[in-house]
């Protein structure tokens, strides 16, 4: 496992993203290793979501390369690209559930389209995923517009997990969840990672999540990745923004809570 752990599963080199004259990323480098939980943090508007979208191939970068599983997604023919995309699970910031389908149908869709399950089987499996994501049994028949913000996040996680992906991309997964739900969410991610060897790419502002489950933290600032290392190394870096982020009142509270949890 240790040899596999150091294997790079996502490799970003020299990434440049700009919208008009506004440069979001400039020569950004990032490595994500197989089986790790990587948190990407940064102030608002530093391009965390843009980075995620470039990696999963929704945005074509102005220059630079993004290689996932050693392949450049945007250069692949459509069929091969689709095969790779099936190994992603993506949880978008606002859930991005299909609003005209029920929660169960949202989860069933990839199972029928890609895993070629029969509909009754796909529904059974979808119910397991929905339960795993922590939704009550009656949520499956509801439409996204009938769900609360936290439930939408859970339903979106259930859909992201539908195909048992290799890499899970989570865009602010715990934003809008209550603290109990957020803690359960963190534990679920950890369990899935340990059981399935998932790689998790996590964009988050939630310091509790960072302290509890992440292996490494990448800090986006000044249009690039300032540092990508273990939490301790990142928190020790001499940078004003990082110091304020990790040692401000919220950062201190989260670190105390995480330490307290470990000593129990």
């Amino acid at each position, binding site marked *: 496992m240790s040899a596999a752990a150091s294997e790079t599963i996502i490799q970003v080199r020299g990434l440049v993203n700009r919208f008009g004259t506004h440069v979001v990323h400039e020569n950004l480098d990032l490595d994500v290793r197989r089986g790790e939980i990587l948190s990407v943090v940064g102030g608002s508007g530093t391009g965390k979501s843009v980075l995620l979208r470039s990696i999963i191939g929704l945005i074509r970068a102005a220059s630079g390369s993004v290689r996932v599983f050693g392949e450049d997604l945007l250069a692949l023919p459509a069929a091969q690209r689709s095969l790779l995309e099936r190994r992603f699970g993506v949880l978008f910031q606002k859930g991005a559930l299909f609003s005209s389908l029920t929660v169960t149908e949202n989860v069933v869709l990839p199972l029928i389209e890609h895993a070629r*399950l029969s509909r009754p089987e796909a529904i059974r*499996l979808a119910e397991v995923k929905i339960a795993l994501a922590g939704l009550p049994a009656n949520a499956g028949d509801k439409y996204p517009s009938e769900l609360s913000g936290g439930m939408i996040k859970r339903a979106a996680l259930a859909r992201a997990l539908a195909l048992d992906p290799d890499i899970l991309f989570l865009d602010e997964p715990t934003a809008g969840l209550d603290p109990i739900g957020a803690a359960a969410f963190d534990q679920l991610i950890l369990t899935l990672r340990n059981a399935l060897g998932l790689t998790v790419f996590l964009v988050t502002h939630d310091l509790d999540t960072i302290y509890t489950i992440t292996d490494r933290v990448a800090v986006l600032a000044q249009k690039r990745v300032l540092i990508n290392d273990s939490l301790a190394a990142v928190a020790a870096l001499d940078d004003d923004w990082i110091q304020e982020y990790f040692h401000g009142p919220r950062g201190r509270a989260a670190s105390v809570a995480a330490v307290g949890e470990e000593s129990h």
Partner: protein
Amino acid sequence: MSAAVSGAAVFDDREGVARLRLVGDWTLAHHAVLLGQVNGLRSRIDARVMVDASELRVLDTAGAALLLRLLGGEGVHKLVGSDSGLSEGGRALLAAVGDAMVGRGAAPAARKGSAVGDVLAHIGEGVGTFWRHAVDLLGFVGLTLSAMLRVGLRPSRWRLTSLVANLEQTGLHAVPIVALLTFLVGAVVAFLGATVLADFGASVFTVNLVAFSFLREFGVLLTAILVAGRTASAYTAQIGSMRANEEVDAIRALGLDPVELLVLPRMWALLFALPMLTFIAMISGILGGMLVCVLSLGIPVPMFMSIIANDVGVSHFIVGMAKAPIFAFLIALIGCMEGFKVEGSAQSVGTHTTSSVVQSIFVVILVNAIAAMICMEMGW
């Protein structure tokens, strides 16, 4: 990583001890194979079975779900607790799936309905929907009129910018399509008249036919139908997306009146735009008819004009123009009302946009028919 091995469940009960060996990959990729085995073995598995998972290579959530179905909640609980050779990660996953599914039964069977019953139910729903639409429309008319009176007395609350913007969208931008369409229809009506009336040697009356039909009916009706398709749908989609995005709720929460902010400017815009478009449609339709008269009947332009001036009374023009504001009011109201009925989903926006176009065209034609009858009885 070595090649994937399809998972399997191997069962034997030699020596009176039931044993179940789990081997290979229990993953989504092998779901079909595993499902067959699970279904075959389920009846033979009871609580005393010994599970050996030491040869289980990979377990994912799909595999865990199948194990849960094979062993039941109790069995999975026991498997997690016992020394079965299951890896640490697999145990945690199985426990998570088992815990999540506690107290959830199998999926209820799909409801079966009879075809006749469904048809009757659809008819019933249809009638109910029609009735509700009528009641909703009347209610919305009242709401809008009361808002109109409230705002109308206070010019400071007239939203002129919004009105002008809407006027440009619904009026100015619709001129080319309205003019072109009515021109073509005018030409077709003239051709029809020329053909039929020639048999009676009365082809000169084609002029009267074109003028009568466009001033009284076609000018306003064609314009209203075009505007219903063009503007009612736009109103519904605009307000509908705002509803889906909670913007309408935000307007309410800011202490503002969505009817005043969203409906009144749109309605006033259409109240101004539709009569103007109708006028353009009348002129353009008569021009289309005139072109045909000049080219195929040899009626010169001055003669065409003098026939209209002498034979066609101004009352026809007034009847036509009088209908325009009524249609405008109804189209704008239906468009806005359907927008407010949207409920959060993309499909809902689509359904209500369709509904608004169908309803507004229906109402336009219905009201036009009623108006024609009244005018006939009154001799206008």
